[in-house]
C-alpha cells in the first residue's frame, strides 16, 4: 500500500532523512518512534507530499508521490492525516469541518456528506457536539473530530503525526481508543507516536528512527522483546521506565 524506497531529504545542508526505506502493507499498522528530531514526522509528511524529498521514491497504492505527473491533491484526498495540533478549522462548526472537503473535493451532496459526517461523529462518540465550534471542545474531543474528519474522505490509509503529544494525560486514552478501534477494523495506518502501549496493543511492526535513519524496522514482538540495537534499547528503557 505504502512503499518508501531510499528516501533522502535535506533542509539546506542539514540531512534530515537518510536513505529511508520501508513498506506498509494493506491493513497493517506500523508505529514509528524515536527521539525528537529523528525525522519521524518529516518521513510521514513525505508520504502525502506535505514535505518534498530530494531522492528516492514513495509509492502510495502504486502512485508515485514525487513524480512530476502526479496530482498531489488527488492522492492526498485518499490518504487521511491527523496532526499533533489537531488543526481543526476554527471558523467552521464540527459538522462542517467534516463536510467541507467531502463537498469541495469529492463533490458529494450536502445530504450525503452530512450523513457520513454524523455517522463518523457517532463512531468517535461526539454525536452531541456536531453544532459546536472546535474551540468549545477539549483537546481530546478535538483530536477525535480530526480523526473523523480524515475518515470522512474514505481514505485507503491513515497517517498519524504524534496524535496524542499535545494532549493532557487524561485525554490520551479517548484518542487512543478510537485509533485502536480503527486498527482493529483493518485500517492501514502509519503512526508516529511515543505511546508504546498503543504499539504493543495493535501495531504489526515498529520502526525506530534516529538521526534521520531507520535504525530498526521489525515485528512488534521482536522489537519489544529484543531490540537489535543499543540505541533502540536505550530509547525503550527511557520511555518505558517512567
Amino acid at each position, binding site marked *: 500500500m505504502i512503499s518508501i524506497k531510499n528516501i533522502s531529504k535535506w533542509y539546506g545542508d542539514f540531512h534530515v532523512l537518510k536513505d529511508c526505506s520501508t513498506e506498509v502493507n494493506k491493513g497493517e499498522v506500523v508505529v514509528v518512534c524515536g527521539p525528537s528530531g529523528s525525522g519521524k514526522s518529516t518521513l510521514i509528511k513525505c508520504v*502525502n507530499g*506535505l514535505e518534498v524529498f530530494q531522492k528516492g521514491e514513495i509509492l502510495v497504492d502504486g502512485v508515485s508521490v514525487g513524480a512530476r505527473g502526479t496530482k*498531489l*491533491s*488527488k492522492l*492526498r*484526498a*485518499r*490518504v*487521511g*492525516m491527523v*496532526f499533533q*495540533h489537531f*488543526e*481543526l*478549522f*476554527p*471558523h467552521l462548526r464540527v459538522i462542517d469541518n467534516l463536510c*467541507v*472537503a467531502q463537498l*469541495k*473535493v*469529492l463533490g458529494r451532496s450536502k445530504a450525503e456528506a452530512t450523513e457520513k459526517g454524523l455517522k463518523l461523529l457517532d463512531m468517535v462518540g461526539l454525536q452531541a457536539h456536531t453544532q459546536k465550534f472546535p474551540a468549545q471542545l477539549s483537546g481530546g474531543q478535538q483530536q477525535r473530530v480530526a480523526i473523523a*474528519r*480524515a475518515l470522512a*474522505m474514505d481514505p485507503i490509509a491513515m497517517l498519524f503525526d504524534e496524535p496524542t503529544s499535545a494532549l493532557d494525560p487524561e485525554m490520551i486514552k479517548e484518542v487512543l481508543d478510537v485509533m485502536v478501534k480503527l486498527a482493529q477494523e483493518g485500517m492501514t495506518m502509519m503512526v508516529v507516536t511515543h505511546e508504546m502501549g498503543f504499539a504493543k496493543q495493535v501495531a504489526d511492526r515498529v520502526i525506530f528512527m534516529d538521526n534521520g535513519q531507520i535504525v530498526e524496522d521489525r515485528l512488534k514482538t521482536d522489537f519489544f522483546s529484543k531490540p537489535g540495537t543499543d540505541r533502540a534499547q536505550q530509547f525503550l528503557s527511557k520511555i518505558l521506565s517512567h
Partner: protein
Amino acid sequence: MYQFDWSSIPGALPYLWQGMARTLQITVTAIIVGILLGTVIAVLRLSKNSILSSLAALYVNGFRSIPLVMVLLWFYLLVPSVISKIMGQPHMDIRLLSAFVAFSLFEASYYAEIIRAGIQSISKGQVSAGLALGMNSGQTMRLIILPQAFRRMTPLLLTQAVILFQDTSLVYVIGLAEFFGVAYNTGNRDGTLVELLLFAGAVYLVICLSASTLVRILQRRLAP
C-alpha cells in the same frame, strides 16, 4: 467677540445631505473594490512565483509612496481620455468616475498590506490540514485561510475605512462637491464659513468616533 451665525445651516441641510451621500458613495465603492482587489494583490504578493509577487509589491509600494492628492489629480487628468477612447462619451460625471477609480486603486494598496498580514497570521498547520484533505491551494486559501484571516482583520479593515472616509474630502481638488466641499461652498456663499466648517467637523467627529467604538467592540469580541 466673534458672533456665531448658525442660521444658514438648516437651509443648507438638503445640500449637505447630498454631499454626505456622495462621500458615502465614494467610501463604499473604494472599500468594496479596494478589498476585492487588495485580496487578489495580497495573494499574488505571497505567491511563490517571483514575477507575480514582485509585480504585486511594486503596486503596493508604488501607491503607498505617492500622496493621495496627486493620485486623484492624475486619475482626473487620465481617466476621461481613457474612458472616451474605450466607450465614447461617458454618461456619468467624469470627476466622480475618476474619484471612484483613484480611491479604489489607492485603497487596494493599503488593504493588500492588511490582508497580507492577516493571511500570514494564520498558522501553517491550517494550510497543511487543508492540503491533506485533498484541497488544492486555491481552495485552501478560499475556504480555510481567508475566512479566518478576514475575521481577524475586521477591526483593521474598519479602521482603514474610517481613514478613507475622511480622505474623501480631498476630492475638492478635482472640483467634486462631497460633504466637506458642500459645507465649504455653502459657508463661502453665505459668509458663514466658520460655522459650516465647525458643523462639518462635528459631523465627521461623530461618525468617526462611532466607527472607532465599533472597532473596539469588535476587537474585544474577536479576540481569540
